């Protein structure tokens, strides 16, 4: 397996803000890699440095064995980039837009139209880009990033602002793109999206990569913590703690946020029996740890999307 992206110790400072503080990453060829973190974590700046849009203050980056900075015309046809904002030309239709982008890579109309078809926009080919819905614009923007068949694709929060149905449709498309052998680097602040799509993720906060690994492996590292939650007000957190202690149920946290009383534990059985004895099972939910718990564990604070 060859390496698609290598980043080594990249740093970038804007005035007083250290936006990226020593990020190192390796993404293998064919991998679906996620860059996770809340807004302001440094994902976008990291992505821009990887793409070669910004120069890092320190560190080095290689894409497909080539340096992206300064602008490298040999590399550009091999990478595809999609941004959060849809960067389209004024007053063109979807078809005219993708054909224009295709022409930059010496690609003709037929292949361009084929991509319109693949993202499900052939029906809307004559719609002006400023009249398209958020989901349509997002799909067109992805098609424009893929029109030249790049080996390495960067996607910046591609599903932000989409309704759940459109999001799922887009996930299918992204999985297909990756299945065809393209390396995909995706930034997202939706942890569920990363769990569904990514082979590996890097969790970022404050400009640093806190942890890198397969989503399932990161969750497993949490010692298989299970979250049990019931409606708030059935039993106080304090009383629950006493009962768990006397029943010998090992819990790592008991919290009442006014809506839910939630208990984090490795062994849910004794916790459940204590709650059953107290007749405090209304609204019961038991769920395994997720990337959100990983994030909470890594940063010590709630994940804020």
């Amino acid at each position, binding site marked *: 397996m060859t390496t698609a992206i290598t980043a080594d110790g990249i740093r970038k400072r804007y005035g007083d803000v250290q936006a990226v503080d020593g990020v190192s990453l390796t993404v293998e060829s064919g991998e679906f890699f996620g860059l996770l973190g809340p807004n302001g974590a440094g994902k976008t700046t990291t992505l821009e440095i990887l793409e070669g849009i910004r120069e890092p203050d320190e560190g080095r980056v290689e894409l497909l064995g080539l340096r992206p900075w300064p602008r490298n015309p040999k590399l550009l046809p091999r990478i595809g980039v999609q*941004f959060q904002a849809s960067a389209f030309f004024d007053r063109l239709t979807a078809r005219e837009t993708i054909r224009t982008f295709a022409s930059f890579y010496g690609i003709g109309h037929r292949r361009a139209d084929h991509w319109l078809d693949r993202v499900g926009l052939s029906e809307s080919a004559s719609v002006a880009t400023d009249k398209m819905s958020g989901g349509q614009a997002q799909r067109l923007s992805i098609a424009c990033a893929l029109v030249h068949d790049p080996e390495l694709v960067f996607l910046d929060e591609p599903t932000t602002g989409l309704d759940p149905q459109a999001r799922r449709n887009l996930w299918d498309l992204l999985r297909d793109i990756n299945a065809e052998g393209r390396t995909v680097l995706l930034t997202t602040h939706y942890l569920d999206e990363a769990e569904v799509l990514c082979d590996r993720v890097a969790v970022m906060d404050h400009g640093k990569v806190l942890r890198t690994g397969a989503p399932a492996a990161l969750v497993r590292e949490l010692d298989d913590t299970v979250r049990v939650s019931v409606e708030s007000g059935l039993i106080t957190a304090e009383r629950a703690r006493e009962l768990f202690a006397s029943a010998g149920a090992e819990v790592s946290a008991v919290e009442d946020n006014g809506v839910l009383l939630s208990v984090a534990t490795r062994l849910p059985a004794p916790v459940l029996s204590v709650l059953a004895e107290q007749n405090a099972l209304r609204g019961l939910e038991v769920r395994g740890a997720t990337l959100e718990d990983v994030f909470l564990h890594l940063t010590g604070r709630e994940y804020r999307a």
Partner: protein
Amino acid sequence: MSATAPETDRRTDDAPGEKASAFVSLSRVMFVAFLRDRAALFFTLALPLMFLVLFGFLFKGATSPHVKVAQVGQVAVLDSVRGDERAGLDQVLTITQVPDEATALQKVRKGDFDALVEQGPNGQVVVRYSAADQVRAGGVQAVLQSVIQSANQQATGQPPKYTLAASQVEDQSLKPIQYLTPGLLGWAVATGAIFSASLSLVSWRKKRLLRRLRLAPVSVGSIVGSRVLVTCVVALMQTAIFLLVATTPVFGLKLTGNWWLVVPLVLCATLAFMSIGLVTGAIAKTEEAANGINQVIILPMSFLSGAFFPLDNSPQWLQQFSHVFPLRYLVLAAQSVLTRGGGLLDCLPAMGGLLAFAAVLTALAWRLFRWEDA
């Protein structure tokens, strides 16, 4: 751009003629956007033309200062003018009999008449005028003065010792359409070029289209070149439409021999104006800001460059100051080649100046240029 093997393969499955270079397709995109943008079409083509039509009609009758005089009672000197002299007098003076002095005065005050004339004692002719329009007041006095002079001279019974032989030199004085056409055309070209360069730079940067282009194997030359091409085509469209309208019999512009020199002149000027737009587009962060900055430049430049009226009567310092504006060179040189029989030598210095201006400002824009918002 780079012709790697798989690239060449993938190019073969399309029919020839379907593929275009980045330069061609960017040019097409910008031209299509221009044609679909009603506001741009209005401001670059329709509005200047409306101004030409409006000003053309407004100033059409204003060439000879015709004055209206109210005459009260009999005025011997005026009444005695007969024959050819009478016809000559009628060309510059309309005399209306008004029954009494009070009514006549009232009408002069209101501006219905430029002056009133009545017989004074001892052969005196009394003229009373309003100072509101000094040019007309002066005109009335000059005309009446000359009538009285010639009457006096005739009264002596001698042939006049000195006579004035007046004949017009071809087109030394500009008729309105002759300065309106190059002036408004210059203004239109300046507005179109400055705005198109500046706004496409700002909006492409803001929409991240510049970033997208930077991440595609598109050369900066293709981006800049296509913008220059499209703006030059638009400027030539403006020129063609202006000349077509101005030479219709209604406006009656007569083009002189070397009028086609306006084409290279307009092209040089378009480059100069685009360079202004590149600078403002590099400075401005939003379209609104770019709009404001451009207007602040275009309006004074147009007035001070003689785009709306000739500068001949303006103060010396203002005429000196106008030398900094590229529009001045375009307007004067276009006047020269379009209507005054000017040749290549009359507009070469202007073209050189415009290109030099473009070079300096483009260099500045190059320094200020940003791909991204800071």
